[in-house]
């Protein structure tokens, strides 16, 4: 019962944060980073 409560709470907060992140253009920021080669990520820059 208690676990079910946490599952519901985490999923609800998760969805709200995800939507807030999309609203803040974070998803676009992720895409811009990901469609270019990240030199730091591969150990170059």
């Amino acid at each position: 019962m208690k676990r079910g409560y946490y599952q519901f709470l985490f999923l609800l907060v998760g969805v709200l944060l995800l939507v807030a992140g999309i609203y803040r253009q974070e998803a676009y920021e992720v895409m811009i980073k990901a469609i270019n080669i990240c030199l730091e990520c591969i150990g170059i820059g």
Partner: protein
Amino acid sequence: MLKRRIVQITAAVTTNSYFKGFLEGTVYKGKSKVFCVPGLNCYSCPGSLGSCPIGAFQAVANSAGFFVSYYLIGFFLIIGTLLGRFVCGWLCPFGLIQEVLYKIPVRKIHFPRQLHFLKYFKYLILLIFVIYIPIFVINTWGIGYPAFCKWICPAGTLEAGIPLIIVNESIRSAAGALFTWKIAVLIFVIILSVKLNRFFCKFMCPLGAIYAIFNKVSIFRLNINTHKCIKCGKCSSICKIDVSPFENPNSLECIRCGECRKACPSSAIRLGIK
């Protein structure tokens, strides 16, 4: 085992199926990269169709004006609550690579129980290299840098660095001391993954550390039928992650591989939704 292996290979291939990227030394530029994949999968891998959640978290934290990523925290909450470390055992490409490395027939290391506290090292990596440095260590323009990707991530070196350096002349000419360091980290992880099952997952992976936090509450979980369990300990002895499923079925370290379920003589272990 076969079923899990098929799922692992399917997940790894479908999320890295931009084969043209490997031939041309470029990365996929499509809109699917707005989405994160659940496992550790570098978004600079030439074949990658999605983004790495750890890389993406640092990328947003690095950017001036964001500080903390709601998008990624929401993502971790949803995937963690639904699956927990099932992602590590079934969906992560780097987990698959480590399991393949462990198949190499050399003498294996039995990790002493006294050193099991080293599993907490991955939480330290999460706090310092994924959260603290990318958010708080910033330059004069207010921009931080992806410390985990830059200094540690062996998945990025293997999946992205090496394929790009082989094919892309301009990247090859730019490789220097940092790349040498990253190769050294990769070799260290490969050697220890050959000797010790899922070395990186157990001791170093910050994504595993995040999903571990949700293992106790995740919807997809191990369930023990206490009426059927005869406490023979076979599940504990077969577990490659050194978990004792009949005592602690949803340990933070359990990757839900399901090996214990097959070993159980009384069919007391169930892997599923509850």
